[in-house]
């Protein structure tokens, strides 16, 4: 073959490669949802993010969100994103989580300020995927170089050592739940469900790249949410650490709602205890007021879940202040005590009127 022929072939190959590469990039630009096993080993295969340093950059259609009162997770920073297949939307629900379409991906990334000058280091990204057969939980663990995260059904614990803004040192072992343990919190009557994305928790402004907007409004505007009712009827949970957002009781109950109610509600893993911490449960007796526990748990010498005026006599506080396996609540996903959360609930219990009857009533003793 002539030299010219060789050049021609080489040129064709180069052009083909360039086209292929271009296509590859085009494919990569769209989120790829997997709705049945096997699920990809790498987080990058989902194409949820276009970059992850210095911060996670969502891909097209991936919307960041946060919650009025989040679950406490060892003081980690959390970055939440939602994606739904084009043309689909979630159905609004007043109380429980929205009804998300098949293919929905909820991504929550946990990070600690372990990097240079307190920059966040990504630890894990948990995907909740609405697969064909229902929701599945997929824990992806970030590699040390922060290049990508790998699906690990049984992740190793991570030693975490950092200093917060107030100068307080944190040094503990962060335990990442395994795929079975995800269900301990997310199962309700043996069905795995999302916990956070409820109307009352999403009903807040978020500072998007193009400006602040109410999350429910934005989801609705972008076609991710249908059935949104009038503004006045949308429930709103208090922000646990913002006194401007609600009364002490409202903030305490919002904290219990999103930290405890996923188990402590009828049908939840701890429904049998009779305690219902949902914000919609307005009867304090069902939230443990003067209630003695009916199941075996390590409660010291204490007799009641909530003793009005006496946080130190309340089992709720005793268990939130512990990190021992038999005692601590929640039993999973908390390896350090949430001091500020305990303060809030203690203040609330101190403010409760009345007293408990029964055998432990100290006021009867001389």
């Amino acid at each position, binding site marked *: 073959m002539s030299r010219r022929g060789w050049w021609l072939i080489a040129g064709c190959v180069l052009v083909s490669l360039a086209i292929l590469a271009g296509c590859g990039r085009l494919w990569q630009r769209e989120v790829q949802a997997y709705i049945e096993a096997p699920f990809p080993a790498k987080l990058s295969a989902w194409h949820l993010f276009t970059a992850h340093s210095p911060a996670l950059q969502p891909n097209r259609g991936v919307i960041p969100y946060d919650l009025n009162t989040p679950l406490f997770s060892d003081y980690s920073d959390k970055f939440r994103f939602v994606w739904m297949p084009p043309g689909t939307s979630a159905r609004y629900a007043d109380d429980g989580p929205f009804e998300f379409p098949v293919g929905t991906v909820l991504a929550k990334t946990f990070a600690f300020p372990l990097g240079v000058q307190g920059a966040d280091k990504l630890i894990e990204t948990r995907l909740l995927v609405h697969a064909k057969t229902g929701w599945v939980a997929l824990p992806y663990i970030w590699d040390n170089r922060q290049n990508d995260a790998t699906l690990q059904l049984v992740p190793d614990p991570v030693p975490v050592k950092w200093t917060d803004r107030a100068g307080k040192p944190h040094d503990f072992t962060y335990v990442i739940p*395994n795929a*079975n343990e995800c*269900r301990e919190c997310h199962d309700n009557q043996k069905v795995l469900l999302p916990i956070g994305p409820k109307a009352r928790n999403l009903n807040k402004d978020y500072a998007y790249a193009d400006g602040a907007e109410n999350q429910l409004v934005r989801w609705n505007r972008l076609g991710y949410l249908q059935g949104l009712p009038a503004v006045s009827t949308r429930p709103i949970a208090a922000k646990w650490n913002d006194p401007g957002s609600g009364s002490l009781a409202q903030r305490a109950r919002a904290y219990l709602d999103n930290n405890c109610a996923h188990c402590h509600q009828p049908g939840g893993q701890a429904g049998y205890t*009779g305690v219902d911490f949902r914000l919609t449960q307005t*009867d304090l007796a069902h939230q443990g*007021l003067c*209630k003695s526990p009916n199941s075996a748990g390590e409660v010291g010498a204490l007799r009641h879940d909530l003793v009005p005026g006496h946080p130190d006599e309340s089992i709720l506080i005793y268990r939130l202040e512990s990190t021992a396996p038999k005692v601590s609540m929640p039993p999973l996903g908390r390896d350090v005590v949430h001091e500020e959360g305990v303060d809030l609930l203690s203040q609330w219990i101190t403010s409760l009127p009345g007293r408990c009857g*029964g055998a432990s009533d100290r006021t009867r003793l001389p």
Partner: protein
Amino acid sequence: MKRASWWAVCGVLAGVFLLSSCARQAPEDFQKSLQEQLINAKAGDIVNLPEGKFHFDRTLSLTANGVTIRGKGMEKTILSFAGQKTGAQGVLVKASDFTIEDVAIEDTAGDGLTIQGGTNIIVRRVRTEWTRGPNSANGPYGIYPVECKNLLVEDSVARGAADAGVYVGQSENVIIRRNRSEFNVDGYELENSENLDAYENVATHNTGGMGIFNLPNLPKQGGRHVRAFNNQLIDNNTSNFAPKSLGPIYYLPTGTGMYVMAIRDVEIFNNNIQNNNTVNLYIINYKTGVDEDSLRDTAASPITQQVFAPEDKRFDPFVRDVSIHDNDISGGGQSPDNRVTGVKVLAAALGGKLPDILYDGIVDPTWGRGGANQGQVCLSANGAATFLNFDAAGQMKHPVQDVKQYGCSLAPLTAVSLPQSTGNTAAGQK
């Protein structure tokens, strides 16, 4: 050296290296790979565990149906949870068609083996143990199936539980056989369960041997139809070591052979119940069995009043239709547990000792049955066992010592049969 020799040396070295690296497998690796195996398990899978002692620092869980976990023997394959950091249970199963056999679970923070809400469950030759012996900081339960259906627990061993060694709660169609329970607070607790056979079990050196009862405040009520036969409940005199926080069990008198509380349709026969120092057999109403503090607390709790109201007929505190026959009951009540107020008062009134069989005689006034034995508690052919109805409802004013007044008989209860039970299903048939 020739080149071939170099190769040989190299091969040997490589072999040694490989072998040593296998032997040095880190304990976390076993924990992790086993947990992975359980998460990925599919129906029909058998997860084989090798011989050896393996350390775990967090709960091992299974949610897939149809899985078998099989060790090499309960003295050979040991899952040790000493120093457990995460989760309270050792092995936590929320699945059906599950079998676990030939394995030991030791020193868990909370319960040893929990099986929740499963159908067709077999626990076979499993040992749960707290190796330091009786201690109030031990986990409450050894083998703990709850809300199960078609459950078989056999040839297993439980030691050191701060509540019950072998517990069955809120379950249906159950066989508990040939197990050994010792050095626990309670040997066996058969609670709020229906259609249950317990036979050829041994309970010794516990605080109490076996309890057959219903408790309020639990979702499943109405436990009944329980047969206990060919069991050995002997010398259960280990001082009660339950922490107060565990509730009523704290008040179980040390030296209780068997107690039957707040339940109906029970048949107890061919058992040896001997040398239990408070009482060999205790037949009681819920209020007699549960301490005043607990009762007052429960009654005062607003949630009890709303959710489990006292008039809620789902809970029946009375005991009735109990047939107790052909047992060898002897040597009981020689040194009653004075720590428990009711026992202390009774023993003082009787000169410091108690009879083999105690019945509180409390009957529901609304039954309206005539005669001295409205509760149909029937006792016959129990050797020389001494007896007392201490008339708890009437402030002990009309005690009855003559067991012949209770010489009625009830129709035998039918045997339990399980789909997964092989052999011995006819055991205990007369």
